[in-house]
């Protein structure tokens, strides 16, 4: 395996709610190598959202160090973390979070808007490339309200790809989609995995674990299972076996 992209060293995260201290993460440690497709699973309250926020540099751990692509995150300021997110992380959310009334290309350009090193022309070229990579080369100028859920999630994935991040963080990325579209999105994630991208997919759906290369199970703020999946199922095959929708 290649280099380590993510390294968590005994991460703890406490929240103070009123008088009580809630321990959302109670010492989580693992490494993710470049090119892995990791699913993080757990029931609600298991701490997976907190872990995702930590991995995404949106939150800082109370204790423990987090190295993203070799960079220590814990001591960073808010602004520094924002820049780090901009360069190293691509987010895919459950509810897509596209800008309203905005075209696909403009949505994908968004992360690059906050990177002054990228010129307007380069921004557009890269956004179009990313959209082609997710199979939306024909819908560059479609606005977000003119697209289906699956298409919107593809735009969101293109947006996560456009800054060429060290890791793609997907938060229930198929949660709002029907079965068929979910598999289409999974096919896309597997394709990105094969291209060598590092993906962390947070979900509570155990089925998705069968399509990833590694599976981390979280319970009560601790890692209870961390297993390699040697028998990765093909989402494309599963998609082919699904009964066709009558309108397709």
């Amino acid at each position, binding site marked *: 395996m290649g280099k380590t992209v993510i390294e968590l060293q005994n991460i703890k995260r406490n929240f103070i709610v009123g008088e009580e201290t809630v321990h959302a993460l109670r010492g989580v440690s693992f490494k993710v190598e470049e090119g892995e497709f990791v699913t993080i699973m757990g029931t609600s309250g298991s701490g997976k959202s907190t872990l995702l*926020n930590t991995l*995404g540099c*949106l*939150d800082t751990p109370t204790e423990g160090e987090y190295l993203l692509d070799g960079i220590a995150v814990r001591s960073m300021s*808010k*602004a520094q973390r*924002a*820049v780090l*997110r*901009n*360069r190293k992380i691509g*987010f895919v*959310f459950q509810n897509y*979070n596209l*800008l*309203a*009334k*905005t075209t696909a290309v*403009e949505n994908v350009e*968004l*992360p690059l*808007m*906050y*990177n*002054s090193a990228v010129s307007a022309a380069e921004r557009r070229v890269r956004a179009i490339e990313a959209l082609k990579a997710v199979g939306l080369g024909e819908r560059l100028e479609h606005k977000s309200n003119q697209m289906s859920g699956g298409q919107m999630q593809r735009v969101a994935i293109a*947006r996560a790809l456009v*800054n060429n991040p060290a890791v793609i963080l997907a938060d229930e990325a198929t949660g709002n989609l029907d079965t068929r579209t979910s598999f289409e999105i999974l096919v896309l994630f597997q394709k990105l995995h094969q291209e060598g991208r590092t993906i962390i997919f947070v979900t509570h759906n155990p089925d998705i674990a069968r399509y990833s290369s590694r599976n981390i199970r979280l319970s009560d703020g601790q890692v209870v299972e961390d297993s390699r999946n040697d028998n990765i199922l093909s989402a494309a095959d599963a998609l082919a076996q699904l009964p066709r929708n009558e309108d397709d």
Partner: protein
Amino acid sequence: MNINNLFKIALRALVNNKLRAFLTMLGIIIGVASVITMLAIGQGSKLSIQAQISEMGSNMIMIHPGGDKQGGVRRDPSEMQTLKLENYETLRDECSFVSAISPEVSSSGQLVRGANNYPSSVSGVSPDYLEIRQLKVDRGEMFTEADVQSAAKVCVIGQTIVDNLFSDGDDPIGQVIRINQIPLRVIGVLKAKGYNSMGMDQDDVVLSPYSTVMKRLLAVTYLQGIFASALTEDMTDYAIDEISTILRREHKLQADEEDDFTIRSQQELSSMLSSTTGLMTTLLACIAGISLVVGGIGIMNIMYVSVTERTREIGLRMSVGARGIDILSQFLIEAVLISITGGLIGVLLGCGACWVVKTVVHWPVYIQLWSILLSFAVCTLTGIFFGWYPAKKAASLDPIEAIRYE
């Protein structure tokens, strides 16, 4: 993040919410338009009052014999004989802040021409008098210095005299009118001026050389007054000082003696009127300024709503790498864009309103450049000031909560 991208982002957000942006602007538009219109109306009336005053001769200085008090009793200045013709000549020769000067002696009486007669008075003046009183000869000509030297029996008459003595439509030029049995040949007719703001008929005048009136009509050696015109309105005070110094010297007054003459100018009237209109302008501007502040509060209001409504968008922007300062700048730029665009439309609307006021209501309006610049500057400041708090709120949102905000 460069400022160019921030502008693009802010502009796009506004374009996506055209109607709301416009409604927000409305407060600013009305505010700016009213500031400009009110200031223009205020300034217009100020100028028109000034013009009226200067029509009466805003540089005019009047010198009358007699001080304000004399032994506790005031006397009719025209009875006093302290102002002599020599005083006039000295002033004429020595004053440097005075552009025109004329003595004044008047003799009242019944003007007679054929079967017509009219009670009026003949003013004995020098040719400079026209300049001092802003009079113009309409037909014929003014008498000259030579007429003064020879005490010629000529006169220039106002339109009211023409109407009363020449009601048969004869051309008055060359005709002879009589006053107190003295025949005067009409050599000119003054251009009509109408009534002044005090209600006095400015056309009820007969002007003759002062020598004629002094020698032939009144047989006196003293003057009833001297009229002078300062070089400019601003120099009136210097001119008054100069005249006062010369007259005190001529009248051999000691330092502890009071003036035996009174000097008045139009400046007091002028400054009183302009301070009144200045006050009015300030009041109008205050009212208009309040509407600008209300417009600003409108911006703040909408920006707050907008921040709440766009919480998810802000969360997303932060998660893809927008720093707090980027979000702050975006919302500030939005607020300033709204207020500046509103300001621009307001300026146009204000100019339009001024034009309407001018053409429809016929009020004098005068748009000053500084009022446009001022309201523009105030606009921008309003945008920054009232945009700051919502922008600060947006920038301080927690991206984790913002992105999941429902």
